[in-house]
C-alpha cells in the first residue's frame, strides 16, 4: 500500500485550504498554487510549499495541464487533489498525471469520461435500469426538429447544454412560442462557456427538489453511500443553501434513493468520492440527473451529519486502502446546513459584484465552520468565481440548525462589498423554507418576500449609534491612530 508524502492541490480559495487542512492532519505535505493576483489570499501561503503560477488567463495557470504536471515532477509530488471545478473532471488531466506516475485523488478516467458527458451517462443509466426524465438527448440539433421534440415531450421543457454544468446554457421554456428565442440564448451561452453549443431537451418537472447522494467507493469493490443532501434552494441554477438530511424524504424513500446511488457506483465500478444527483417529484418519484465525479462544494454538511472527513477518505482510497467500515456503521446524525456566501447583488438579478472585503467577522456560536477563501483586506475580482466563503453549521434538528445559521450569518457580515448575506438570512427566516417546502423554484416563487426590506426604526437607531461610537475614520486597522468617536465630539462640544 502506498503512503503519500506530498500532495499538490490543483485548486485555489476555500477548497484548496479545506483539502490542505486534512493533509496537515494526516502529516502529508501540501503544495499550494497561486497566481500573481492572489499573493495576498490565504490559500497562497496556507500549505507547506507555495508555487506562483504567474499571471494570465486560467488556461495559462490553474487549467494549464502540462505546467501542472511539470510542477508535480519538479516538486516530487506523489498525488494531486483537484478539488472541484477547474481540472477535477477533465480526463486529459487524469491521463497526463498517470503518464507522469502521479496519482490523481479522484475516480478512474473511464468513469470521469462516461459521466462527463450527459448523453453517455444517461445511456449507461438507462441500461442499468435507473429512472430517467423523459427527453431528447440526440445529435440532431436543428431548431425546427428540437421544437417538434419539445412539443412531443410536452411543455414546460428544459433546454440544457450537453457539456454543461453550473446552470450555464440552461433555459426553462413554458410554451411553444418562447422556444426559439430560449434555444438561441442557451446555445449562445453554452458556446461561450464550454466551446460547444450542443443542447438536450427534457421534461421540466414543475415542483422539483434537488436531492443528491454522497457516495464513496474503494479499490476493493466496496461501494458506500453517506446519505443525501437536499440542495433545492438555488438561484441561476446554482445552489446557495444546502442541508442534510432532506426534509422531504421518508426513511423508506431515503433508503431507496441512497440504494439507487450505490447501484450506480457499482455499475460504474466507481472509485473515490462522487455525488449522484436526482430530481425528486412531488409524488415521490425520482430521476437520475447526473453524477459528479469529484468532491462537491457542499460536502461539509455530509461530514457534519455522518461525523466523517470525506477528503481523508478520498486520500485513503487513493492510497489503495480498504475502507474499514460497513454501510450500517454510517449514520446520519442531527441536521447540518451550508450557505454559500457570494459576492453578488441579489437585488440586481444576482449579478456578481467586486470590491474589497474590509471585515469578515467572527463566530459567537459553538462549532461553526467557515470555509473561506478570503480574509479581511482581500480584493474580490472578476478573475475567479464569485463564491467567497461557505458557512456550515450543525445542530440537533432542522429548526435548531436554521436558527443557528441565521445567528452565524450575523457574526459574518463580509462588509465592504455587496454580498448575498442578508438575502440568505431572509431565506432562512422565510416561513415556507422553515416548513421544509423547498422546491428548486423557491427563490423565484418567493422573490417578492425575499426582497430587501426597509430598515426598522430600531435598526436605524442601532446604525446611527454604531456609526457614532465606532468613529468616522476610514481605516480600521488594529493600530489605527485617529478615530473620532461621538464621545470625543461630544466632549469637545461641551468644552467649547
Amino acid at each position, binding site marked *: 500500500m502506498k503512503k503519500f508524502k506530498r500532495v499538490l492541490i490543483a485548486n485555489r480559495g476555500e477548497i484548496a485550504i479545506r483539502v490542505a487542512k486534512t493533509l496537515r492532519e494526516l502529516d502529508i505535505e501540501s503544495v499550494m498554487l497561486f497566481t500573481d493576483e492572489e499573493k495576498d489570499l490565504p490559500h497562497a501561503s496556507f500549505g507547506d510549499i507555495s508555487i506562483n503560477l504567474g499571471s494570465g488567463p486560467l488556461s495559462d495557470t490553474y487549467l494549464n495541464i502540462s505546467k501542472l504536471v511539470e510542477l508535480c515532477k519538479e516538486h516530487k509530488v506523489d498525488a494531486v487533489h483537484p478539488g472541484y471545478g477547474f481540472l477535477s473532471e477533465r480526463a486529459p488531466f487524469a491521463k497526463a498525471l498517470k503518464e507522469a506516475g502521479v496519482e490523481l485523488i479522484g475516480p478512474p478516467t473511464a468513469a470521469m469520461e462516461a459521466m462527463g458527458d450527459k448523453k453517455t451517462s444517461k445511456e449507461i443509466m438507462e441500461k442499468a435500469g435507473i429512472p430517467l426524465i423523459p427527453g431528447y438527448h440526440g445529435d440532431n440539433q436543428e431548431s425546427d426538429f428540437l421544437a417538434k421534440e419539445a412539443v412531443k415531450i410536452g411543455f414546460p421543457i428544459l433546454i440544457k447544454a450537453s457539456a454543461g454544468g453550473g446552470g*450555464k446554457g440552461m433555459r426553462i421554456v413554458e410554451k411553444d412560442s418562447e422556444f426559439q428565442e430560449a434555444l438561441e*440564448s442557451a446555445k*449562445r*451561452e453554452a458556446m*461561450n462557456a464550454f466551446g460547444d453549443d450542443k443542447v438536450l431537451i427534457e421534461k421540466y418537472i414543475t415542483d422539483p427538489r434537488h436531492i443528491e447522494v454522497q457516495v464513496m467507493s474503494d479499490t476493493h469493490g466496496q461501494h458506500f453511500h453517506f446519505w443525501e443532501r437536499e440542495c433545492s434552494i438555488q438561484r*441561476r441554477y446554482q445552489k446557495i443553501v444546502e442541508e442534510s438530511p432532506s426534509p422531504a424524504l421518508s426513511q423508506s424513500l431515503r433508503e431507496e434513493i441512497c440504494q439507487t446511488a450505490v447501484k450506480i457506483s457499482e455499475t460504474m465500478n466507481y472509485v473515490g468520492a462522487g455525488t449522484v444527483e436526482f430530481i425528486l417529484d412531488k409524488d415521490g418519484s425520482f430521476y437520475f440527473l447526473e453524477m459528479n465525479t469529484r468532491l462537491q462544494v457542499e460536502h461539509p454538511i455530509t461530514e457534519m451529519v455522518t461525523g466523517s472527513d470525506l477528503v481523508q477518505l478520498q486520500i485513503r482510497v487513493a492510497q489503495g486502502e480498504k475502507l474499514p467500515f460497513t454501510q450500517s456503521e454510517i449514520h446520519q446524525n442531527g441536521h447540518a446546513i451550508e450557505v454559500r456566501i457570494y459576492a453578488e*447583488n441579489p437585488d*440586481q*438579478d444576482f*449579478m*456578481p*459584484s*467586486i470590491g474589497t472585503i*474590509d*471585515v469578515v*467577522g*467572527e463566530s*459567537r456560536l459553538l462549532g461553526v465552520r467557515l470555509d473561506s477563501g478570503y480574509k479581511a483586506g482581500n480584493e474580490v475580482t*472578476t478573475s475567479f*468565481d*464569485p463564491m467567497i466563503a461557505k458557512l456550515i453549521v450543525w445542530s440537533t434538528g432542522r429548526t435548531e440548525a436554521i436558527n443557528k445559521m*441565521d445567528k452565524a450569518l*450575523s*457574526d459574518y*457580515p463580509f*462588509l*465592504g462589498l455587496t*454580498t448575498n*448575506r*442578508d438575502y440568505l*438570512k431572509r431565506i432562512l*427566516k422565510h416561513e415556507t423554507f422553515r416548513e421544509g417546502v423547498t422546491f428548486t423554484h423557491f427563490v423565484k416563487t418567493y422573490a417578492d418576500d425575499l426582497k430587501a426590506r*426597509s*430598515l426598522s*426604526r430600531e*435598526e*436605524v*437607531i*442601532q*446604525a*446611527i*449609534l*454604531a*456609526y*457614532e*461610537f*465606532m468613529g*468616522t475614520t*476610514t481605516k*480600521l*486597522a*488594529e493600530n489605527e491612530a485617529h478615530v473620532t*468617536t*461621538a*464621545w470625543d*465630539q*461630544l*466632549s469637545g*462640544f*461641551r468644552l467649547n
Partner: protein
Amino acid sequence: MEKELLINDESIRYTLEKGQGDEILLTVDGLTFKGRLLERENARSVIQIDGKNIQAWKSKNHISIGDQSLKIENPREQRKTKGKKSANHEMSSPMPGKILKHLVKEGDTVTTGQGLIVMEAMKMEHTIKASFDGLVTKVLFQEGELVGAGVDLIDIEKSGEV
C-alpha cells in the same frame, strides 16, 4: 448637536447629547434612546441601547447590525466625492463585460423591472433592468461592445420629471 447621515441613501437627521456617565442620548423624530459603548475591537463593537446589547460591525461606509448590512455615509463627506456618479447608477454595468443584446431602443417607454440590456460577465448572461419608469433617451453601447465596471449603459428620462 444636530447631525445628518445618509443610511442606504436616505437622509436621517438626529441629535446627540451627553447623558449620564458614559451614556449618549440619541434623539430621532422626537424619540430619545440611551446608548453606551460596551466593547470595541477593530471593526466590531458591542453597543448597549436602552439596556439591550447589540453587536455591530463597521467598515468604511458599511455597517452590519442583526439581519441588515447597510450603507452609511456622512452627507458632507459624500458631497465632496460625488458629482460624477449618475442618478441612475443602478442601470450601469456593475462589472466589466460585453453587451450582448439590446432589449429596448431609443424612444421606448419602459417600466420598473423591465429588461433593458443583456450583458455577459463572468461567462453568465445578466439582464440590466429599469430601476424606474421612464423614456429611453439614449442607448450608450452597441451590441458586442466591451464595457468596464460602473459605466452607464443607458439614459432614461424618469416619468413625471421635466
